[in-house]
């Protein structure tokens, strides 16, 4: 299917420079971005296969008993017309229940959980669906930030069917009081776009008396060449 890619940005995307997150001032370009037509370079993109996914898997507990609220996260990857994006590469990573990442740069004195892998990946199926088992991550403080705590969140990396349909985002949990004061979530100006980054609790996704369920759908850039009527 031929997809077209309209210019990106506007209030549904975060400001490149945000007040609460001062480091954006030295990483975001100061010059205006240069508009370019979408060429073969942008409308083509890497295609991933099972060998790329490897054996990392979709159970971040590896079947072990892990500290934290066992949770199943599931959703659909869609294009801007609501059509499923099949074979999208979905990668996800998160802190453990105490808000600690298995990364050398995370030097905060919080415990690692040796039974929790903290990362997984998969390709979406023909309906654009993905699903994985994890625990709800803990909040953690941003270093040198005057006591800014990140709300529990899961990082998501998605590659759709073109270089242009590439997204890295974060999923938040419903009802967390830290959501409304988080400098990264609140960097998205449009309230409806922020709400779409918050998963919905969904019993049909969870496992009865065993795991909580959350639904999180993601929209990637691109829609079909002929606009749908209505």
């Amino acid at each position, binding site marked *: 299917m031929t997809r077209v890619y309209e*210019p*990106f940005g*506007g209030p*549904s*995307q*975060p*400001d*490149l420079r945000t007040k609460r997150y001062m*480091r*954006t*001032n*030295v*990483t*975001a*370009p*100061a*010059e205006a*971005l*240069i508009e*370019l*037509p979408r*060429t073969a*370079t942008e409308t*083509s*993109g*890497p*295609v*991933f*296969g099972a060998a*790329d996914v490897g054996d*990392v898997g979709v159970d971040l507990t590896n079947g072990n008993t892990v500290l934290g609220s066992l949770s199943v996260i599931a959703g659909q990857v*869609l294009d*801007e*017309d*609501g059509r499923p994006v099949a074979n999208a590469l979905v*990668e996800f*990573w998160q802190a453990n229940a105490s808000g600690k990442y*298995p*990364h050398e*740069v*995370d030097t905060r004195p919080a415990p690692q959980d040796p039974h929790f892998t*903290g*990362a997984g*990946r998969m390709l979406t199926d023909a309906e654009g669906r993905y699903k994985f088992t994890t625990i709800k991550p803990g909040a953690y403080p941003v270093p040198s930030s005057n006591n800014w705590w990140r709300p529990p969140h899961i*990082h998501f*990396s998605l590659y759709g069917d073109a*270089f242009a349909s590439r*997204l*890295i*985002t*974060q999923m938040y949990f419903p009802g967390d009081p830290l959501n409304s004061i988080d400098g990264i979530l609140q960097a*998205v100006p449009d309230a409806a*776009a*922020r709400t*779409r980054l918050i998963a919905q609790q969904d019993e049909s996704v969870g496992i009865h008396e065993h795991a909580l369920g959350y639904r999180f759908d*993601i*929209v*990637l*850039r691109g*829609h079909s060449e002929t606009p749908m009527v209505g």
Partner: protein
Amino acid sequence: MTRPSAGQTLGPFYNYALMGANEFDLTRGGQHGPAITITGKLFDGEGAARRDFLLEWWQADASGQYANTADAPFRGFGRCITKPDGSFSFKTIKPGAVPFEGNSWQAPHASLGIFGPGLMRRIVTRVYFADEDNTACPVLNLVPEARRGKLIARGDSAGAYTLDIRMSGEGETPFFAE
């Protein structure tokens, strides 16, 4: 129609999570042209070399075709995370010229997507090659002339090219709107 989901920074704690986070060797599936390397460092707006920036490289094969299957001989995609000293490196082959509108062609180039801690969404640039004829590239010519050189990697006779990336401020790399 629904607008795309909002991007969010990938944060500093991801390098254990991403597939092929060090698949900077695009020739790993086989040699389909003379090997070249592109190395450089990534700097922020204060001139500090920055670690843990994710670079994603996308290019055509030697004939200017983009791979469209997972088992293509040359897949054209690689990832590299900048090291503590800000350095990055890709090993690949020189791409061919890529069609543009009408009868015009884009000079051989790679697209580079950049994610980083403190970057709220992807920033995109391109890499061109100093030993190619870049004068008629319709995309490169969208960049103000005084800044074009910042997109052009310079190489030696052994195919070792260098190009630094400056995210912001003095000497800023030209970046393209998505």
